[in-house]
């Protein structure tokens, strides 16, 4: 008797919760669907992934401003960015994706990391909404389904090219490989570099592992400090890259670092200062006035004007391109229905964005050309080599 009463209480509480949830989300008044086109931002504004999410969002907002300033989309409709923060948490990423879909977004841009994209992917695919990841480079992203895209330079293209360049142009024979083991991007890129370096007869004489958000790399550097090698291949992000090089210099070594576009941000020299001079980064996006296209230059200037003179990083540039790609596909299809503009998106070819030229291959994977090898010179990236596919 007593038990059953309490049990029914429980169920009551659950239902009250359901109503509460209903109220919590129900007070947003949806704008008239025929006057706006909504694109969602999926990413983190708080928590460990916040620095990538915030930058992506900045790029997306700039794209939306540009589109609206030029008269909107589909003959005068307003492009709206629906932004939600998943707080770098798996479960909230799923909720947020679902929420944006129920709010009528036709496409979602994000998440810049592979892990969260894999959470959002199946939800977007199931709901028939286009998901354009502005940064995911890992395996198994576009394989989720035909609504899933990404606009980044794939490392399986870039890493072997760079390895070949290191061997043939710079004459490297021995390297140290450093991986950030809690970073999926780094783990994947290291795998590609291992194969690429081996194919070009470059020997990895030592491997070291670090973790994202580590600040102290003295033990790792000391353990290869007395070895003979030509350079350091680091596959993680700019923060750890800058700090790692600082430690390398502190221990009296003069080697340079090579890495992927995870290193492509001003933070690299803000943290690394002189230590990252000469370090090399390969990317499909070059913020170098001498080589950049007018489109890229305009983006860099606009970004600098809005952010107190700091240079954009790859996340903001990819966020900008992701929105622009979607807008162009929607315009080409003449419709904001995901099932229709995903078809025009699929046949995008030689599309010029701020991060380079993008085409989608038959497997819907992005093909970006050329690959730039950038070098840090006087705290700025300058193009060291342009490698065409």
């Amino acid at each position, binding site marked *: 008797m*007593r*038990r059953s*009463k*309490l*049990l029914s*209480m*429980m*169920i009551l*509480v*659950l239902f009250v*919760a*359901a109503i*509460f*949830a*209903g109220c*919590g*989300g*129900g007070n947003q008044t949806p704008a008239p669907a025929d006057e706006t086109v909504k694109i969602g931002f999926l990413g983190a*504004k*708080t*928590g*460990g992934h916040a620095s990538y999410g915030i930058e992506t969002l900045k790029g997306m907002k700039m794209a939306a401003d540009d589109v609206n300033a030029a008269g909107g989309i589909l003959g005068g409709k307003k492009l709206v960015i629906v932004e*939600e*923060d998943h*707080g770098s*948490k*798996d*479960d*909230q990423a*799923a*909720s947020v994706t*679902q*929420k944006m*879909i*129920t709010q009528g977004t036709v496409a979602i841009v994000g998440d810049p990391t*592979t*892990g969260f994209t*894999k*959470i959002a992917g*199946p939800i977007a695919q*199931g*709901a028939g909404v286009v998901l354009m990841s502005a940064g995911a480079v*890992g*395996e*198994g992203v576009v394989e989720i389904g035909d609504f899933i895209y990404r606009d980044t330079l794939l490392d399986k293209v870039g890493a072997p090219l760079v390895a070949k360049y290191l061997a043939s142009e710079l004459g490297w024979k021995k390297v140290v490989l450093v991986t950030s*083991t*809690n*970073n*999926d991007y*780094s*783990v*994947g890129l290291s795998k590609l570099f291992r194969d690429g370096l081996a194919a070009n007869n470059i020997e990895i004489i030592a491997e070291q592992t670090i973790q994202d958000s580590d600040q102290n790399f003295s033990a790792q550097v000391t353990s290869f400090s007395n070895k003979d090698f030509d350079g350091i291949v680091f596959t993680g992000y700019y923060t750890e890259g800058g700090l790692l090089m600082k430690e390398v210099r502190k221990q009296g070594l003069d080697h340079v670092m090579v890495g992927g576009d995870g290193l492509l941000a001003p933070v690299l020299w803000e943290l690394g200062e002189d230590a990252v001079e000469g370090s090399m980064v390969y990317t499909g996006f070059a913020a170098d006035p001498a080589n950049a296209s007018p489109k890229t230059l305009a983006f860099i200037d606009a970004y600098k004007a809005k952010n107190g003179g700091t240079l954009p990083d790859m996340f903001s540039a990819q966020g900008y391109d992701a929105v622009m790609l979607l807008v162009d596909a929607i315009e080409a299809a003449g419709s904001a229905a995901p099932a229709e503009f995903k078809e025009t998106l699929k046949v995008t070819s030689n599309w010029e964005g701020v991060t380079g030229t993008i085409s989608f291959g038959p497997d819907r994977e992005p093909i970006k050309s050329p690959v730039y090898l950038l070098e840090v010179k006087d705290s700025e990236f300058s193009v060291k080599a342009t490698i065409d596919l």
Partner: protein
Amino acid sequence: MEELLRQYMNLYYIQVLTLICIMMIAALGLHLITGVTGQLSFGHAAFVGIGAYAAALSNIHWGLPFLICVLLGGLAAALAGVLVGFPSMRLTGDYLGIATLGFAEIVRVILMNMDITGGARGLAGIPRETTLVLAFVLAAVAIWTMYRIQDSRFGRALVAIREDDIAAECNGINGLWYKVSAFAIGSFFAGVAGGLYAHFLQYLNPSGFGFAKSFEILTFVVLGGLGSIPGTVLGTTILTLLPEVLRFSAEYRMMMYGLLMVIMMIFRPRGLLGGVDLLPLLKRMLYSLRKKQTPLNGDGNGRSV
């Protein structure tokens, strides 16, 4: 049933409600360990993680039926729970909590470095099987089971250990056995929740089961009212909804979440429903309602004299 729900209900609400039901099962497990038996555990998310990975892997590699996978997840977590339960013989209070925290971090690092789990790249390709109806039914079953456990001889032994384990031992209660059992059962709940979570999110990453998650579950249990099942249910519901409800505050969202945690704790130090016995309260409410219709001899406060 699920189809019907998906037709008439906002999918976002379904998503959040399913998450609440799943987290509730995990929180009830911790309720048994910390709330009923009084053994501090700061590493509950590790059991959820073990369950999630075990269930997902047995589905992906062996193709077992979904519910069997969830059960396997629960059993794997229970096994880990037994392992963690043994140190509770030597460690008490905060020290046990710290040891469980250490255990959980080790589990996370191991998951991060194993090949079969996909390491930092995570585990994708898990089919979506968890539905709101299933999660709700299992949460209700979990609540009912928890009441059965607490009302049994076994449950009273656990409470005796919480109140005074030396006195309990003197009364012939084998402390170690009961503590280990509590850890095993509590972890089983966490493992089942993990299995549901894996088939709900379709993607697992070890960093999702770090100490932050453990403390989140602990907060559900303590803030709701330590040792109270309705408290655990309420705590889980409120604290899972809070980040969603606070979305209107944009970048101040998590700041408000933290602030509200402090405020709720200060105004209800024993938890929202701590020390509140719902049954008499409910009876009194019903009584005063009835009294309004047919005047009875009362003292005006609904209490009979």
